[in-house]
């Protein structure tokens, strides 16, 4: 198809292809040097105001989704499509001609020919040679000449379509990616053990995406090698619809769960913020407190629980434990696990008192009429982080990508297409046999549209074979 349209001419050029491929390669480097999609503050700090503005205008911080990068991809696709349309009709005519014509003159122009002389008349050789060519090549044609015959044979004519297959696969990949970004989503959900979600948060927009079903996380397990490296993360999930369990599956890192076109991946995990469970634990716990009365020097031991007021001996008011904090802070210093309480003296304002488990004399600092401390400080009793008590959440990646099958077909087609393009070519051979007295002169010539050296070698091999076929 000859087309004079300048736009067409622009897109049909392989110069453009080379330019686009190299531009894509060169610009892709940027995104590997500047980490993508980080916090703007980090960028600002690193590059200063001017470069930051410049990079932001150019979308460098999310460059693979920037308009100019997508434009390069779009130009490449247009290039491929236009190029393929432009050449397809010519290739089509070559692969499906009305009648396959062999042209002896084309073969005679070749530099590399093999020739030998053999005992036997052309008529005796014809059967053997045709069956040999049929075995090696398939389609063939024998033309009688005045004193002998010419045998043409060919194979893999259709291999000329190989490149179109490769190019079609690139187009499929891009179409699949577009389908995925238009109709799919990428979300995540952190589900604590024993809890459920029916929606996830989207990665790029932060919007909430309803799923149409409920994911219940029964249990999360992690196991380790003896080196301490993690061995397996496993979440036991149940899918529920209208409260009815529909599907149960344990997912691990390389084995996701799929339901209604949505895939659920084991992505990360974490421990639940400890306060919640500590409160829970300590509301059950009996705690012994020592009250040292300054004026008398007496020490009294009293039993209590969080939330239950105790009377302080010798008429010093009441004291109520209010909370347990495994990571308490005092003037900006971490002082570890501590109980907090409210001391209500008989006169004056109630005050907050902190009782760190690791510092029994801490409350002396307050210089009050009574010093309070936790009695018999056995750390075990107070350690809230007993291994079996740790509650985990499963970090799940929840995606839908309806384009993935288009992409995967693109993958397969690309491999097949590359194989055909690189390792199969349209090969034609011509064997000419002419009578010379009571012997025959044989010439063998071969043409291939690719890998000419391979063809030359093949012709040499055939010549040896045919010469010994008596």
């Amino acid at each position: 198809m000859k087309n004079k349209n300048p736009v067409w001419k622009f897109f049909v050029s392989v110069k453009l292809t080379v330019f686009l491929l190299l531009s894509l390669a060169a610009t892709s480097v940027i995104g590997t040097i500047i980490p993508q999609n980080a916090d703007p503050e980090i960028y600002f700090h690193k590059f200063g105001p001017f470069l930051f503005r410049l990079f932001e205008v150019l979308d460098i911080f999310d460059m693979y989704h920037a308009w100019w990068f997508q434009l390069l991809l779009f130009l490449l696709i247009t290039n491929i499509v236009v190029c393929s349309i432009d050449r397809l009709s010519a290739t089509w005519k070559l692969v499906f001609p009305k009648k396959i014509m062999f042209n002896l003159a084309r073969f005679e122009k070749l530099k590399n020919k093999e020739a030998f002389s053999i005992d036997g008349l052309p008529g005796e050789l014809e059967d053997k040679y045709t069956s040999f060519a049929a075995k090696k090549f398939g389609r063939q044609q024998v033309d009688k000449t005045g004193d002998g015959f010419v045998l043409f044979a060919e194979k893999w004519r259709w291999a000329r379509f190989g490149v179109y297959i490769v190019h079609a696969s690139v187009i499929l990949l891009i179409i699949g990616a577009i389908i995925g970004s238009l109709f799919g989503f990428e979300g995540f959900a952190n589900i604590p053990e024993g809890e459920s979600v029916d929606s996830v948060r989207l990665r790029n927009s932060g919007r909430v995406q309803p799923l149409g079903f409920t994911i219940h996380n029964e249990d999360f397990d992690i196991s380790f090698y003896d080196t301490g490296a993690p061995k397996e993360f496993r979440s036991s999930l149940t899918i529920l619809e209208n409260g009815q369990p529909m599907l149960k599956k344990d997912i691990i890192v390389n084995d996701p769960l799929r339901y209604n076109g949505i895939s659920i991946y084991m992505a990360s995990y974490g421990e639940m913020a400890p306060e919640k469970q500590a409160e829970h634990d300590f509301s059950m716990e009996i705690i012994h407190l020592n009250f040292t009365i300054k004026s008398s020097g007496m020490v009294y031991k009293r039993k209590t629980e969080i939330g239950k007021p105790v009377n302080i001996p010798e008429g010093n008011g009441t004291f109520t434990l209010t909370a347990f904090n495994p990571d308490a802070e005092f003037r900006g210093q971490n002082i570890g696990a501590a109980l907090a309480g409210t001391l209500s003296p008989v006169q004056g304002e109630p005050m907050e008192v902190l009782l760190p488990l690791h510092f029994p004399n801490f409350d002396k600092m307050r210089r009050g009429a009574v010093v309070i401390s936790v009695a018999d400080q056995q750390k075990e009793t107070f350690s809230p982080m007993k291994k079996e008590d740790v509650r985990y959440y499963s970090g799940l990646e929840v995606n839908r990508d309806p384009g993935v099958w288009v992409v995967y077909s693109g993958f397969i087609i690309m491999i097949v297409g590359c194989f055909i393009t690189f390792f199969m070519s349209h090969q034609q051979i011509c064997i000419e046999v002419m009578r010379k007295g009571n012997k025959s002169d044989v010439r063998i010539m071969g043409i291939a549209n690719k890998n000419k050296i391979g063809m030359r070698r093949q012709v040499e091999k055939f010549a040896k074979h045919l010469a010994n076929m008596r």
Partner: protein
Amino acid sequence: MNSSQLLSFVTFMYGFAATFYIAAWIFKQTMPAKLARWVAIAGILMNAAGFILRWKESYDIGYGHAPLSNMYESLVFFALTIGIIYLFIEIRYKATVVGAFATPIAFLAMAYASLSPNVSDKIQPLIPALKSNWLIAHVVTCFFGYAAFAVAFGISIMYLIKSWAPDKESGILARLPGLNDLDELTHQMIMFGFLFLSIGIITGAVWANSAWGSYWSWDPKETWSLITWFVYATLLHARTMRGWYGKRIAYLSIIGFGAVLFTYFGVNYLPGLHSYGAV
């Protein structure tokens, strides 16, 4: 003998093979060439044996995985694939001189694996993300691609050396294959490499999709493999359509191998994580 010892021995075998090949080329001796071939073959067999032994050892320890999971193991496999591809060329094209340019690369890979303090030869257990059959398909295909590009690189260097004086009748340049053959061989290697790199990227994408739910996330390693792919696609088009040939193709092939090396080693020095560690 454990696999690490056997494999450090392989380093020396490749070193000797390379030395003999180069000596045979420079001094026009047939003895070293024959010796080189046998030493190279022995080295490749030992390399394969070391690979298999290491596989077995990992089962003995109880980890049980193919030795393709860290830098050391990938270097060992890289050397092995270079050896196999070189042997194929040697048998098919009878081009012994190529050995002088291919075995040194296998030697360097093994030397780096055995001697660099940054590369540990300890057998490590597989972290959850790597526990996938795609790991084997991905690494094997990638490395056949890389190895073919490495050999193409060696042949491109030969091309450039030869092109100083292509018509010389004697001397070391004359003992290199003709320019046309070198050019054709480069092209063959690059087509082979391109096919395997494509399959490598594809299996990697399928694996990423089964592990993290996304077949492409523009992580630096992925992106660099794509950059490499673009460079070689450029080369193929320049050659098929624009008739680029000879020196220009040799330069592109060298640039392409630079991209391969960056994908393999350089990416580790870039900011950010490769997603292996992300989980």
